[in-house]
């Protein structure tokens, strides 16, 4: 084994690979350790919608920073990362939601993020397969989609180019101060350790305020042109973040292959990764409600994924409040593909004494009281 790295990053999902790439690019010697293959956790399950959300000022800031960085990265991404600037349409069902569209437009405008309100006619021109009777939509042209597992692999490749060591198929069994123990019995020592193991992070660092939140997904066969923007119902936020309750929201994404990817559902306290047909059925009925023409299209596969959710839905980025050498980059809930690049930037600035591009406080792990845990 090469000399001890400055930093070990545990977890080769989109967040871990982004952090490894950023840290390596900025001169740190990095070892990235992934239990399975790159991008195989939540990163393999999620929709990969690169979207700037506005549910809090901090979320917006991280989202915008991240989306800008995705745009920069897009030129360097390989074709199989399928980066596509399709834009988002936040669909309003009625006048009440239309008022929310205008409020959202104002919020974005005040922060200089391009977004325009579409009336019903413009909406149907953009997406003729939507059901009649909708009120309009907010069009956010700068949002994109990416195929995250290949993007994670590309980020790991970038880390390697900058001297990082990438170990795959190697599970970490324990993080013990500056030592990381692997399932095969080896131990690696580093200056600092970043736990970026997604939902797996809570097993390595007991006491993390993170809970898995299950989501069902379904993908159709190829129907090019059936939808052309990422379509999300405006009630999404309301549905998605009504903490506690199981919920579904209409979310449809055009894949470059012509397939349509359908989400989304949210369930706490589910540990079984098998498809839950009751929840899947509810989610698909919601999709049919917005896109009735889907009924006769064929679904070729359904699956599920787990989002690592914190109580305030913001990720944990920064030093662990009580473990000296341990840093955290997890808890990205349903936005981690988007916010991975902003997370990497923020983490690297904090670790390598750079100038943070945004206020780190809302993301500081110390904002929570960590309960339990071996050393806490």
């Amino acid at each position, binding site marked *: 084994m090469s000399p001890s790295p400055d930093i070990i990053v545990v977890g080769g999902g989109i967040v871990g690979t982004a952090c490894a790439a950023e840290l390596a690019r900025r001169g740190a010697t990095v070892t990235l350790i992934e239990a399975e*293959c790159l991008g195989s956790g939540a990163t393999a399950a999620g929709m990969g919608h690169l979207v700037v959300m506005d549910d809090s000022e901090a979320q917006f800031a991280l989202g915008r920073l991240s989306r800008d960085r995705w745009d920069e990265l897009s030129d360097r991404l390989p074709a*199989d990362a399928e980066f596509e600037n399709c834009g988002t349409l936040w669909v309003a069902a009625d006048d009440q939601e239309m008022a929310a569209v205008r409020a959202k437009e104002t919020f974005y405008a005040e922060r200089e993020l391009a977004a325009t309100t579409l009336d019903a006619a413009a909406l149907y021109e953009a997406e003729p397969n939507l059901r009649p009777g909708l009120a309009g939509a907010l069009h956010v042209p700068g949002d994109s989609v990416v195929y995250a597992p290949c993007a994670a692999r590309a980020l790991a490749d970038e880390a390697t180019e900058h001297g990082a060591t990438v170990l795959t198929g190697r599970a970490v069994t324990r993080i013990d101060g500056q030592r990381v123990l692997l399932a095969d019995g080896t131990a690696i020592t580093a200056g600092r350790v970043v736990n970026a193991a997604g939902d797996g992070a809570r097993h390595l660092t007991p006491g993390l305020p993170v809970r898995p939140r299950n989501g069902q997904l379904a993908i159709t*066969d*190829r129907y090019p042109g059936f939808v052309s923007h990422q379509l999300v119902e405006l009630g999404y936020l309301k549905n998605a973040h009504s903490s506690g309750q199981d919920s579904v929201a209409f979310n449809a994404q055009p894949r470059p292959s012509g397939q349509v990817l359908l989400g989304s559902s949210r369930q706490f306290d589910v540990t079984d990764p098998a498809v839950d047909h009751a929840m899947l059925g509810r989610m698909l009925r919601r999709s049919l409600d917005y896109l009735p023409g889907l009924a006769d299209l*064929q679904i*070729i596969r*359904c699956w599920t994924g787990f989002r690592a959710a914190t109580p305030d839905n913001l990720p944990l980025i920064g030093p662990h409040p009580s473990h000296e050498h341990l840093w955290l980059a997890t808890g990205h809930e349903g936005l981690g593909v988007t916010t991975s690049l902003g997370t990497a930037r923020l983490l690297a600035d904090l670790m390598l004494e750079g100038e943070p591009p945004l206020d780190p406080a809302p993301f500081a792990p110390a904002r929570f009281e960590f309960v339990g845990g071996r050393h806490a």
Partner: protein
Amino acid sequence: MIERNAQVVVIGGGPAGLAAAVAADRAGADSVLLIDANVDPGGQIWRGETRRRPDQRNATAGDTLADFGTSAVLHLGESRVVAAPAPGELLVETAEDVLVVRYGSLVIATGARERFVPFPGWTRPNVMGVGGLQAMVKGGLPIEGKRVALAGSGPLLLAVADSLQAHGARIVLVAEQAPSHKVARFGMGMLMDPGKLGQGLGYAWRLRRVPYRRGWWPARADGRHRSRGDASDAPVSRAVLTNGRGQEIIVACDYLACGFHITPSLELVELLGCATEYDTYQGQRTTVVDGMQQTSVAGIYGAGECIGVGGLECALIEGRIAGLAAAGHPAEAAPLLAERDRERNRAQALNAAFSLRPELRRLADPETVVCRCEDIPLSRLVDLSSWREAKLHTRCGMGACQGRVCGGAVEFLFDWEPRSTRPPLFPARVGTLAAPRD
């Protein structure tokens, strides 16, 4: 949404499924439901038999289909099991409807499908599986006067050559990959079995003018467009066979039919959580069953090719045992067990004689397409270490066929753990999976 309940539900209308359904019915099951994707009962081997005049039917087929026709079994044709939403419950899609089927016990008889071994040119038009070509000919594809080369392994090659010849095809070559001594040993085995011998001698006589080369296999399929010259999408114009010692046989042909054994259809088995295991004789995974054909999940039975490739007699007798056990009368199956074991042993001997040689793993070029749905060449797979990695990073096996075609090939080429099975088992309408439950 329609609801159906039955004491015994059988999935698959091939010989194994038909035998199971009839046995369960005769044993006195309250209700037996047979669900099959095809319109008519018969499965792969008896495709089209029900449309023939009874006096022209194959005798075993005739008997089995007649027994089925006069039984009280409810036959649900053109229906596919697409998901298992809850224990004891199946979601079934038909052309128009969605059904929820609840069972007391279940017999899985989903059969097998052809295994493809990729070699340069295998994706050209008119290069196809022996079973596929046979089904198309039974379905009306004109084959009269066409030159057909067959390559692959096992008695199925000769059976298909015989049937294509009977439809007027000119069989230009049958290339058996197994070496002569293994085939000869298998021939000796058949001598011990008068029934099989008669069948074998029949083929031998009818195919006596056809070159039958043992120890040869396809190296590539060349193609030519009449007008545009050589192109990768041109139909096959000649087959190039090799014996691995630098020699080649080149034959002109209109069709190249390949048959590298068949591979059990395990999707439903896996979805229901029944255990599977790697069978070294067959070189592939099969369903684990006990002496009464019960899988690792209580109340779920397996019979026929989906628990391991065994042929017609094996499928029939396993079906009967499974049907009796599923109906709650396992004791009545006791007299059948010894014969079933003999059939299985015979099948294993056959599988051993025609086991695929390791050279077949190295036929594909880096450019040879392995996954046809997603157009993934071999070069993109060789450095990967698992199905999951292949799927996530190349989309291999993620297309409409969900690995039904490339799965067997990939399993043969690389020693990867099997793929995960997720619903739907077949492409299913959004409306079907959205159907409200309770």
